[in-house]
């Protein structure tokens, strides 16, 4: 027990000191910042209207006017990748927020109180967990209808169990530590103990799982849009662009290449950051 505590304590000290020297974390951050700037440029100064059709520019290759070329409707791919990255990021971000928020609440309550609440909530959790998240999201979509917000909500709900489990495990570990008893003796309420005393100690673990969750959400959004139930045309999303591009793969490989690269960079950036946080 004592050895565990020591490692637990050490985790946090290192988080504070060594992220600066953590190569994975730095590389990840650089990629993420790059993608953010890319997205922001798209929002503020997109070179073309991402939905503007120009029939004279159909399948135009890469040129100075169209850096990434044009698609089957003559729309500028660079502008669409910028806009699509934003759409994908929005869905992934919303998904992670819903998943984390409710995951923390469910995980904290079940982990801290245990007993009947634990049994009930965790069994519901297990039953959600038993289905693949895409399948579950498909089910929600068929109830809610297709669209950006519906996909975000559906994926968010599908992501709750994995966060809940992680938080629950951390709370189970923490609730038997003496510092929780000390807080109780001070007269702290359960609410205060859970959210002010224990929760900050789960940040290290939570943060890296948020990053991993974000990656899964990017992939899930891309798959949903690829299947045609996510972001609706003519609005671009990275997954949607990939799905449209696959028909023209031989004719215009650049159409599939750039959204693919954008997905890879988004995921790589956050994975590296997660790895960096998890490792120290």
């Amino acid at each position, binding site marked *: 027990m004592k050895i565990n*505590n020591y490692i*637990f304590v050490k985790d946090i000290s290192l988080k504070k000191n060594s992220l600066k020297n953590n190569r994975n974390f730095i590389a990840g951050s650089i990629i993420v910042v790059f993608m953010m700037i890319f997205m922001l440029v798209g929002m503020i100064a997109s070179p073309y209207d991402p939905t503007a059709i120009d029939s004279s520019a159909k399948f135009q290759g890469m040129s100075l006017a169209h850096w990434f070329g044009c698609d089957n409707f003559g729309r500028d791919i660079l502008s669409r990748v910028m806009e699509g990255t934003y759409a994908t990021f929005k869905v992934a971000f919303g998904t992670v927020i819903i998943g984390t928020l409710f995951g923390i609440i469910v995980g904290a309550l079940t982990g801290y109180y245990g007993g009947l609440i634990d049994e009930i909530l965790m069994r519901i959790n297990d039953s959600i967990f038993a289905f693949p998240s895409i399948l579950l999201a498909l089910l929600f979509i068929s109830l809610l209808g297709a669209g950006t917000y519906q996909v975000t909500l559906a994926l968010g709900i599908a992501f709750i169990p994995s966060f809940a489990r992680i938080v629950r495990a951390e709370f189970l570990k923490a609730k038997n530590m003496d510092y929780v008893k*000390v*807080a109780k003796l*001070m007269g*702290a309420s359960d609410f*205060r103990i859970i959210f002010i005393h224990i929760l900050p*100690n789960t940040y290290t673990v939570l943060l890296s799982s948020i990053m991993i969750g974000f990656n899964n959400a990017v992939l899930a959004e891309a798959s949903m849009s690829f299947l045609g139930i996510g972001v609706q045309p003519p609005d671009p999303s990275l997954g949607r662009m990939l799905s449209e591009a696959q028909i023209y793969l031989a004719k215009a490989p650049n159409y599939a290449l750039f959204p693919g690269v954008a997905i890879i960079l988004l995921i790589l950036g956050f994975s590296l950051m997660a790895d960096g946080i998890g490792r120290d």
Partner: protein
Amino acid sequence: MEKVLTVENLIVEFKNKKSLFDKPSIKRVLNGVSFEINKGEIVGLVGESGSGKSTIAKSILGLIPFEGRIENYTARPQMVFQDPYSSLNPSKKVGWLLNEALYLDGVKDKDIRKNKVEEMINLVGLSKEHLERYPNELSGGQRQRVCIALSLISEPKLLLADEPVSALDVTIQAQILELLKELYKKMDLSILFISHDLRVVYNICDRVLILKKGEIVESGTPKEVYQNPKHEYTKQLLDSI
């Protein structure tokens, strides 16, 4: 004499249930323990591990369910735990923890809290700079000093010390015991000092209770008990020193 604590016929049982349909097995940890602590007294509670020492402390603090009567004549007794590594929240600065203890004690004025925190940290032999540190930046002895500050900042009249020095090395042990003695005089405390080590208890306590398998088998002043042990178990404990 004025009492601060009366414990009468304290019984604690732990139910152990392995699965839903299992018949629970009952383990009796404390079997009718009675004692009292007078104002200004340091009472030592000695026994081997598993004898129920910590369970007594936990029942007094209301952390576990029990049968029997426990009467506290003082408001909110506090406790110093054995392991200074797990009893300080690793994500909070020392100053935050001390401030929190005062805030929860009902001191709403920020400036009063700040002064009190600084006063307390000096009282346990640390300085203002330690308030800005995280627990993992402190040594074991310094951590235990912080734990003591944390338990005494709300000015309790009764302190339970559960093996407060057994996780520390010998030189530090002496310092912490010295500190406890000093604070005991300054803050007008009564202490229940739990230990498995008779040597530690001999130096600090007014009265000793010997606990074996959930029952008190012998009690008296340290001199009486040490020089003329009546119970076989006490003799064994003394021989093992």
